C-alpha cells in the first residue's frame, strides 16, 4: 500500500505498549510472520473489526513478554497475540 503521509509515525500494533491509542492505517499480513496464510490472517482481522480507520487502544497485556494484548477496537475488545498484531499498522 502506498502512503505519502509521514511514515515515521506508522508502526505495527504488535510493538505498541499498554495504553497506546491510535487509528488503523492499513493491514500488512506479510509482516506478521503468523502461522496463518496472509489472506487468512487478513480476513480474520477484518472479521474481528480491524479495518482501516478503526480506533484502537491497548487495554491490557499478558504477564510473559506483555503477550497477548487486549485491544479495544471501536466498540469491542479483542485479545490477540503480538505476532498477529504485527499485521495491524497504526498511527
Amino acid at each position, binding site marked *: 500500500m502506498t502512503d505519502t503521509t509521514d511514515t515515521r509515525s506508522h508502526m505495527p500494533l504488535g510493538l505498541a505498549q499498554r495504553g497506546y491509542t491510535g487509528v488503523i492505517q492499513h493491514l500488512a499480513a506479510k509482516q506478521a510472520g*503468523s*502461522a*496463518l496464510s496472509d*489472506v*487468512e*490472517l*487478513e*480476513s*480474520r*482481522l*477484518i*472479521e*474481528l*473489526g480491524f*479495518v*482501516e480507520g478503526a480506533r484502537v487502544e491497548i*487495554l*491490557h*497485556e*499478558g*504477564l*510473559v*513478554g506483555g*503477550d*497477548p494484548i*487486549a485491544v*479495544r477496537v*471501536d*466498540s*469491542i*475488545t*479483542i*485479545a*490477540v*497475540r503480538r*505476532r*498477529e498484531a504485527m499485521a495491524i499498522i497504526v498511527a
Partner: protein
Amino acid sequence: MELPLLHLALVGTPNSGKTSLFNALTGSRQKVANYPGVTVERKEGFFVTPLGRQVSVVDLPGTYSLRGRSPDEEITRDFVLGKATGETVPDLVLCVADSTNLRLTIRLLLELKRTGRPMILVLNMFDIASRRGITVDVERLAKELGVPVVTSIAVRRGGTADLLALTDEISAKLAAEPQENSWRALSVSELRATQREADRIIADCVSLPASPDTWTARIDAVVLHPVAGLIVLALILFVMFQAVFAWAKPLMELLQSGFDVLGEFVHATLPDGLLQSFLQNGVIAGVGSVIVFLPQIIIIFLFILLLEDFGYMARAAFLMDRIMGGAGLHGRAFIPLLSSFACAIPGIMATRVIDNKRDRLTTILIAPLMTCSARIPVYTLIISAFIPARDVWGFINLQGLVMFGLYAAGITSALVVSFLIKFFMLRDFAPAPFMLELPDYKMPRLKSIAIGIYTRAKMFLVRAGTTIFSMMVLIWFLASFPQPPAGSTEPAIDFSLAAMIGKALAPLLAPVGFNWQIAVALIPGMAAREVAVAALGTVYAIEGGKEAAEQIGQVLATKWSLATALSMLAWYIFAPQCASTLAVIRRETGSWGWMGVTFTYMLVLAYAASLVTYNVAVALGAG
C-alpha cells in the same frame, strides 16, 4: 389442516446471546447430538408459535463469517446453504446480534443475505443497550438492510413476544419457490467492503454513547492485570476444586451407599446364583460406579457455565495463553485440563469450548494424563503400604512427596505429549492463533445455567452410560465365567476367563514386575481405576474388599517387592484404565480411531514407565 414443521436456524457471532435466545425459545425441549462425522455439537429445540405453528429451531455454531475456517463454521455455512448432509434447508434464518455490539453481526448479515434465505435480524439484549444509552432506529435499519428487524430480551419473560409474532407473520407468506443463492466465498477486498458498508449503516441507524461499559472496564482492571489477574484466577480455581471435592463428596457417598444398599437388597432377595451376581456385581455395582461421578460433573459444569455466561472464560484463556502456549496448547485448553484433575470425563466434555479441531483433539488426548480422583485410592493404598511415613529434610513428609511426584509426573508427561502431538501427529491442521473477543461482562441467568447443566448431565447418563453399561457387563462376564467347580475353596475369580487372561498376560507383564494376580486385578480395573483396589482384594482372597484397604495394604507389603509397588505406581500414572474415559473420547471425537490412539499411546507410556521404574528399582536393590 396441519402445517408442516417450520425450520428455523439461529446464526450469529460468538457472544451474541444466541444460546440464551435458543433457551428462551425452547426451554428444556432440546435435543443435543453431534453432526455426523464431526465433533460439532448439534442443538435442536422445539416450540409452538402464538398462532399454533410447530417450529424446530437449530442453534448453529457461532461464526464471524461464512468462510468456514473450522468444522463448526463449515457446519453453519453448509446448514444455511442447505448443503449439510441429512439436514433440511432452514425456512427462515434468525441472525442474532448483541445490540450493544452490532459491527461484526451486521457484516455477517450482509454476507448471509447473499444466500437468498428468508431472514430476520434479531437485536438481542436490547435492554442492556437501552440502559447504556445506545439507541437504534429499528425501522431505518430494516430498510437499509432490506431485512425485517426485531428486538428481543431473551432473558426476560415475554422478551421474545415480538420475535414470535414476526415469525408467524413471515412464515405465513414464505415464498414456495426456491430463492437465488448468490453467495460465494468473499475475497479480502469484498470482506473489507462489506465491513465498510456495515459501518456506514450503523453510523446511520445507531447512536452510541461516548463511554464504553464502565463495569467491564473496572472488573478487567483487576481481572486482566498481569499479576492480580493470575491471583484471581488461582482463587477461582481453588474454590472450584474445593467445591468439586468437598461439596460433591457427601453426595457421592450417598449415591454409593444407595447403590450398595440396592446391591445388598438384590443379594438378600434373590437366591445365590448367576442372576444375583449379574444384577449385584454387573449391573448395580457397574453402573453405580459411573453414576457416583454425576455430582462432580454437575459441580464442574455449574462453574464452567457460570464463568462462561459471565464472560470470564475468555479472560482465563487470555491470562493462560502464553503460559500454556510453550507446550503447544491453546489458552482455552486450560479449564478442561484443570477439570480433568477431578475426572477426565467432564474435562473431555468441557473441551467443547475450544473451537479449533487440532487444539481440541490435543487437549482430549492429554486430558486422561491429569491425575484424576479415581487414581487416588490406588495411589494411597500403595504409598501407605510401601513408602515409610518419615520426614525428609526435616519437614517434608515422604509419602506426601511421592504423591506430589505422581501428580507432577502426570502434568509433565501431558505437556511433553502435547508438544510431540503438535510436531508429529496433527501438523496438517493450521494452528489457531489466539484471537478472541473479550465480551462485556453479563449477569449469568439461572435458567440458562440450569438448562445447560441438565442437558449435559442427561447426555452423560444416557450416552456414556449405555457404553459403560455394556463394558461393565463384559467385565462381569469375564470375571464370573467359567464358574468354580463345586466345593472349591479358592476364590471364584481364579477359575474365570479373567484369570486365564491374567495368567496369559503374566509373561508380558513380568518384565515390569507384575505377577498374574496384578494382571487379573488390572482387568476389572479397566472399568474404573479404583476398582483395581477391590479386585486385588478379591484376588488375594481377602474379605471386605474396599472397606479393608488397610488390610489389603498389609498383605501387599508381604507379597510384593518395593520395585513391583513402584512399578505399579508408574503404571497408574499413564495406563488408559478407564472404560468411561475411552467411551467419552470415542463419543466426543466421533471416532474409534482417536480412542484407539489414546489407548495405545497411554498403554505404551505405562509399559515403558513401569519397565524403567522396575528395572532401576531392582538395580538399586529394591527387587
